[in-house]
């Protein structure tokens, strides 16, 4: 079975600073990987996804993530954080051959942005 670890429960950055949120997965084959963002009291919004091909994927709101097979990682990055990026971020992994909705989520990383 697949699993996802987000090592950082809470990260605080200053507005304008760069950001990297870590995600490590465990899966026996090439996974499908996703990053979602959740504002307080809201549902989750898809930021980006990796299925195959180019290991650097671009998403919405200026986010990007890089798939590194050797490190089993899919870290999320943004070069300059805006105050509106404050939210909780979830990494998720899906397995080939199953319904895409059967995702395994990490426990989330809460991002606080200081002005």
């Amino acid at each position: 079975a697949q699993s996802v670890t987000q090592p950082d429960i809470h990260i605080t950055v200053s507005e304008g600073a760069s950001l990297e949120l870590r995600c490590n997965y465990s899966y026996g084959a090439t996974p499908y990987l996703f990053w979602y963002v959740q504002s307080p009291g809201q549902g989750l919004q898809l930021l980006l996804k990796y299925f195959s091909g180019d290991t650097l994927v671009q998403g919405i709101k200026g986010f990007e993530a890089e798939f590194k097979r050797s490190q089993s990682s899919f870290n999320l990055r943004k070069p300059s954080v805006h105050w509106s990026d404050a939210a909780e971020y979830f990494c998720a992994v899906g397995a080939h051959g199953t319904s895409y909705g059967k995702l395994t989520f990490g426990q989330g990383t809460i991002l606080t942005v200081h002005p």
Partner: protein
Amino acid sequence: SQTIHQWPATLVQPVGSPLSLECTVEGTSNPNLYWYRQAAGRGLQLLFYSVGIGQISSEVPQNLSASRPQDRQFILSSKKLLLSDSGFYLCAWSDGGNSPLHFGNGTRLTVT
């Protein structure tokens, strides 16, 4: 465009009372439908998914059940709520294949 509606947004129910949460999707046909629960600090847990009317798969044994009476309607129910059923419940849909999940805005359930 597709939209997903989930209600109510918040709900406070006593222990032992029944539960019915509803989710509907517009703008697509034969979607895959999902119920997730989000407990504080524990990420999201898949509870049920459905690939068609009347087809329900349960991922974890629990006090809850799900039904899909219509193509774009997904209902989460319980006959008698437990304190441990408190949480944030999210409905989601996908087109299957390579399409990702699309989430509703969730229902905050507090069992007292």
